């Protein structure tokens, strides 16, 4: 964990960038936009063969025993290429939930499989518009789940989920095995189809308790996921910003490059500023994962990253002129992904509230 990346962390970053750059294919990603239920299996195969799902899993459980900083480094690289599958960060969240709250049997059963990429973990906490519903409609009783979670990211292909579910003692965090016929998935048409958002109807899905204080446990996991996602958002923002900068330097108007016009220079300088604030926030949060104030750092990272990615993708399209809004220019991949990542794990309204409550408690 480091505020400045050490040699091995820099190597991970470079290696990820190198591998993913070769694998990146805008035509393939655009094809995925036009179909429902498909994700980029090639991308996921790379993740698995590189051992990325194992990053934060303890070595004893078949993982690499690294931490949130390394998870973030990989997520950032994935964000740059608008990765075609959601499972790396959601799987990390599930591994963390099992590692922190699961019993020995659960850890032995699931962590090696998650680390090896044999099992894809997903996160099903939200209901309706609430990222952390106080009274979930999904119920957990006698080791079984009933009820429906809507628009679950990765829901179309996840194998194992952490779920916030009601019990007679209040909401609990549970681990649900999705492999059986008890779970029905209804894929939703979305503007970013490779995220595999699906309504998941549980009709007796087998599950086990992870934490009885479900809201607190879910909040902890959501903060970890927020920081990993913030890195992915920063990666996306960096990539779309780089496209805008390159285009502004190469395209001429009125006899000079677009990048010589102050309106464009200042727009790009503002983007740079937002991205640096987001990058530093994300890195700082990952570095302070064990700090008592981690929750506020995570919220700050999430808020800054969402703002940076949205703004950078919006402004890049503006710099590109009419071309920016075309299917061909590929910028809409970022436009879509920026919004998808912004709403998947709690929008900024939610994270602002989380942050303010943290700060209120302190004063």
């Amino acid at each position, binding site marked *: 964990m480091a505020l400045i990346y050490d040699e091995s962390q820099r190597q991970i970053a470079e290696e990820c960038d190198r591998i993913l750059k070769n694998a990146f294919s805008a035509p393939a990603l655009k094809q995925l936009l036009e179909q429902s239920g498909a994700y980029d299996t090639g991308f996921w195969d790379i993740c698995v063969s590189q051992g990325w799902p194992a990053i934060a899993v303890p070595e004893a459980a078949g993982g690499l025993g690294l931490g949130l900083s390394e998870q973030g480094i990989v997520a950032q690289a994935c964000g740059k290429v608008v990765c075609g599958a959601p499972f790396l960060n959601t799987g990390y969240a599930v591994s963390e939930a099992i590692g922190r709250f699961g019993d020995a049997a659960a850890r032995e059963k699931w962590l090696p499989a998650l680390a090896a990429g044999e099992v894809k973990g997903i996160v099903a906490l939200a209901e309706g518009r609430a990222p952390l519903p106080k009274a979930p409609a999904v119920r957990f009783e006698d080791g079984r789940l009933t009820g429906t979670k809507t628009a679950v990211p990765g829901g179309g292909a996840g194998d194992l989920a952490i779920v916030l579910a009601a019990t007679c003692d209040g909401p609990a965090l549970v681990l649900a095995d999705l492999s059986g016929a008890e779970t029905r998935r209804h894929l939703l048409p979305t503007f970013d189809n490779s995220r595999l958002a699906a309504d998941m109807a549980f009709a007796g899905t087998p599950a086990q308790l992870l934490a009885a204080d479900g809201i607190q446990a879910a909040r902890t996991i959501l903060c970890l996921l927020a920081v990993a996602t913030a890195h992915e958002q920063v990666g996306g923002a960096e990539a779309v910003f780089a496209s805008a900068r390159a285009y502004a330097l190469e395209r001429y108007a009125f006899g000079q490059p677009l990048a010589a016009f102050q309106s464009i220079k200042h727009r790009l300088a503002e983007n740079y500023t937002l991205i640096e604030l987001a990058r530093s*926030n994300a890195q700082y949060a990952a570095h302070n994962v064990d700090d008592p104030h981690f929750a506020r750092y995570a919220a700050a990272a999430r808020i800054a990253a969402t*703002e940076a990615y949205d703004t950078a993708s919006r402004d890049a399209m503006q710099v590109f002129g009419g071309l920016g809004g075309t299917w061909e220019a590929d910028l809409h991949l970022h436009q879509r992904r920026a919004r998808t990542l912004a709403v998947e794990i709690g929008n900024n309204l939610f*994270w602002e509230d989380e942050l*303010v409550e943290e700060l209120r408690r302190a*004063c």
Partner: protein
Amino acid sequence: MRAETAIQQYRETARRWLEAHAATHGAPARRGLTPEQDLALGRAWMALKYDAGYSGINWPREHGGQGLGALEKLAFEEEEMKFGFPTDYFAVSLGMPVPIILRYLTGDWVLERARAALRGEEIWCQLFSEPSGGSDLAGLRLRATQDQATGDWRLDGQKLWTSYAQYCDYGILVARHDPTLLKHQGLTYFWVDMRAPGTTVRPIKLADGSDHVNEVFFDNVLVPDSQRLGPVGGGFKVALETLVIERHHASDPAGFGPALNLFVREAAAADVDGVPLLEDGRVRERIARNYALQNGLRAIQARNQLMLGLGMEPGPEGAVNKLVSARARQRLSEFVLDLRGAAGVTWEPSGRLDDWVRSWISAPTGRQAGGSDEMLLNTIAERILGLPQDHRPDKGVPFNQIPK
């Protein structure tokens, strides 16, 4: 890791020392003082620091400093600014003019100036900006004319925005010695005695009522050639050297305004017709956004200091601090007045640390001083992002032929 702990210990010790003097020299002691009394307290504070070994922290020992590094200096400054000590008068003096004369001059005289400046007994100002040259520093016009017989110089013209000139003993100055040369080549650099005949300092009253900046007029002021720093025509280079000589300044993510937790505390204690302010989503959004921004700046600061400690070159992203913190402070301070309702117009001036009205009313100056937002954006665009320079009609043209 060991180095980090040593800095932490240094910071702890400094904080304890600062705490012990906060009541007598910090914000509470300054309340209600006249400007003269406040300056006197400032001088006393500088002398106290000098005797305690907290002066010129990163200056060499032979210059009267402590011989420590930038990290110790930053640590001390970051702690010092939390207490509102009267240090503003001396920041420019010790940040640029005195270090630059120590670089260009040798001997007892300059060492005595350094000692007096560190103790707050003497203050130096920086006479760079002019009515026609602020952001465009090399556009300055104040004339320096050399007497061919004696080699000495006469200064004629005006400087502007000179901080604390009314209290200063000496200054550093850039002048135009030859308007027929290219803009950057016709400049020469001097140190000057602020009491030299023909020098007039006129304070400028700012919107917040303070008058710490000045116009300074030079009317046929004699400056011996021995007071020239660098070669004739080398003034722009020495000016740039001056601006970067102290590379590491403590920055404040709150833009040198009141801290965000004061805002949270004020909002948490107030309501509008029974509705708690802190339940208002607009208030919550402001708090969260400002926190995220300030935390990002803190993160950049922490990372850069760590890099400095490891002997690495800090990243360029530190350049965003002044830009974003000053304008965020302006908007947040405006918003505080909203939250107070009609009574938001009341103003009982206090210190920088807790006066939101002062923070708001002085914010426009904060967004100009040390680089306007627009110049900073240009700097980021050109220096960091490698984008082209703006169209520059003054390039390659003798100064006296540049369109005015």
